[in-house]
């Protein structure tokens, strides 16, 4: 803190000298800055085609401005409601089911008195997080495929008819939600476990002396202590509410379930790259980006106010 204010109030002559003294650092960071300019800022420049009637042959500069036409076309289209609905549905559902599961898992690991179980469960639940969704797709095929999936085998054994879970509109959303929880619960639990381990043990000892049972300890000590962390995690996830899991849905979806599977990002991909509607897709992407940014900034401000730590 001291040095930052020093640099800010240093007179012009000394500022230049500071910069020259550190010139090696500026040169060092130059390639990274160039990277940002090319791969992060140039796309921002390209984003203007959202406001144009983009003709690839005319290029960005040669295409005429069309104002908010692309945006209005999207808002009025039938897709608008469906995409927003699906996107929000998946994000909220994953949040609603995923966070409690992760907290429960962390609690169980924390409360378990068998080190072997703790190590075993931790090891195996962390692993799926590092597997790509393509591998998960393979796993899900082995479980849910109507012909040879494990779940359908069991159903057949019990006398039921097999269900095509991944290609039926009514079951697809649950495949998405449950597989996401399965994959991420271990990883999500890490933060909660760290918070649990940080609770002062003397609190528990005092409670034992008062004769508290296990559930009372959870209710009065454990949960309140990690409430902050839970709130922070939820807030951060709310900041990303418009990212409903593009990679997952892209790998798992198929034509029969588009109506329930399409989120903003998958639609942008199809309309933009497969149907070549560059300007429209960019407009939608921009719309998502602006709202996403507002959400991120807001949620981060709230987090900073609440806990003193932040995403950045």
């Amino acid at each position, binding site marked *: 803190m001291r040095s930052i204010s020093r640099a800010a109030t240093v007179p012009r002559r000394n500022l230049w000298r500071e910069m020259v003294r550190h010139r090696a650092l500026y040169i060092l960071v130059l390639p990274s800055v160039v990277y940002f300019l090319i791969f992060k800022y140039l796309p921002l420049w390209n984003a203007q085609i959202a406001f144009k009637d983009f003709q690839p042959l005319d290029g960005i500069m040669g295409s005429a401005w069309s104002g908010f036409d692309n945006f209005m076309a999207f808002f009025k289209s039938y897709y608008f409601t469906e995409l927003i609905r699906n996107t929000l549905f998946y994000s909220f559902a994953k949040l609603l089911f995923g966070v409690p599961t992760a907290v429960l898992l962390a609690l169980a690991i924390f409360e378990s008195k068998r080190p072997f179980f703790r190590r075993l469960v931790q090891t195996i639940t962390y692993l799926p997080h590092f597997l790509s969704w393509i591998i998960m797709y393979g796993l899900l095929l082995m479980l849910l495929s109507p012909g040879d999936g494990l779940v359908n085998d069991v159903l057949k054994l019990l006398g039921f008819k097999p269900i095509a879970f991944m290609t039926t509109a009514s079951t697809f959303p649950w495949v998405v939600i449950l597989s996401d929880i399965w994959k991420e619960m271990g990883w999500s639990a890490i933060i909660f476990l760290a918070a649990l381990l940080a609770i002062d043990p003397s609190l528990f000892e005092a409670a034992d002396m008062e004769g508290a049972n296990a559930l009372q300890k959870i209710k009065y000590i454990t949960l309140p202590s990690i409430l902050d962390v839970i709130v922070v995690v939820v807030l951060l996830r709310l900041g990303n509410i418009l990212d409903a899991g593009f990679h997952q849905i*892209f790998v798992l979806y198929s034509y029969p379930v588009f109506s329930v599977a399409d989120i903003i990002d998958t639609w942008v991909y199809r309309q933009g790259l497969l149907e070549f509607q560059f300007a429209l897709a960019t407009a939608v992407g921009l719309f998502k980006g602006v709202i996403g940014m507002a959400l991120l900034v807001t949620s981060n401000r709230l987090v900073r106010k609440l806990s003193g730590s932040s995403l950045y």
Partner: protein
Amino acid sequence: MKVRRTPFDVVYQTTVEVFMVFIFLVVAIPLWRIIMQSVTPIDFAGTNLQALALSPLKWSFKAYEQMLSHPSFIRAAANSTKIVAGGVVTSLALTIPLAYVLAAKTLPGRKILSTFILIPFLFNPGLIPNYLVITGLGLADKLAAVFLPGAISVYNTFVMKSFFQGIPEELRESARIDGASEITVLFRIILPLSKPILLTIGLFYGVHFWNDFFSALLYLNSSSLTPLPILLRNILMAASMNEYVEANAFSEASILSIKAAGVILASLPMVVAYPFIQKYFTKGTLLGGVKG
């Protein structure tokens, strides 16, 4: 100090342990299933029994043999390896200086740099603008298209920056007083101290690049450049043998076991790296200051 164990406590503890076993089974059963599928021979009948069996009733490694000897597979594995190698080197080369400079307390313009990086992080214009840039640069159909655009992860940068900030400033200052240039300070003093974070971030990037399929899908058109995830996806989506295997090849393994074997082989690097990942990821996440 003796604590009374009430019947309630016993019930509670048992519930906890049962839950642990349950979670273990929920994760382990699908994994076990796919391993079993991959070693099930083509002529095995009776999937109903197989569903509940604890081990494959008959073993056959034909699926693995076929996968491992297939030229497409070898090429795809090589491509993925090239992507990871190129990616990790590029990413570290770009991320380390950035994190280091961001952590340098006395540098004028640090705040500006920080804001400069954060703006695109908060506001992403989406798929199409990025696509136009990358194809416009002539990166289409080159392996670099997969790792170059994602070379710097802002998250990783800030984790690394936190780490560098944890290194005492005095170390740098005293070296500078002794006449060392900034570069010397970075390479001779800071980096050797940073092995854990370098390994962690390197692993972060490595995992990311190995698993990436979408960039590859978008930008790589030649079949000679197909990386492993794309190949795997094609195999998984193939409904019959002919779509994957060359028309005149005679397959001794069922398409199902080939799919399963493909998944297992594709996840092997992750599994092998997993002990290292476990050691460094949890430390890295906590090191990076994701405070509880």
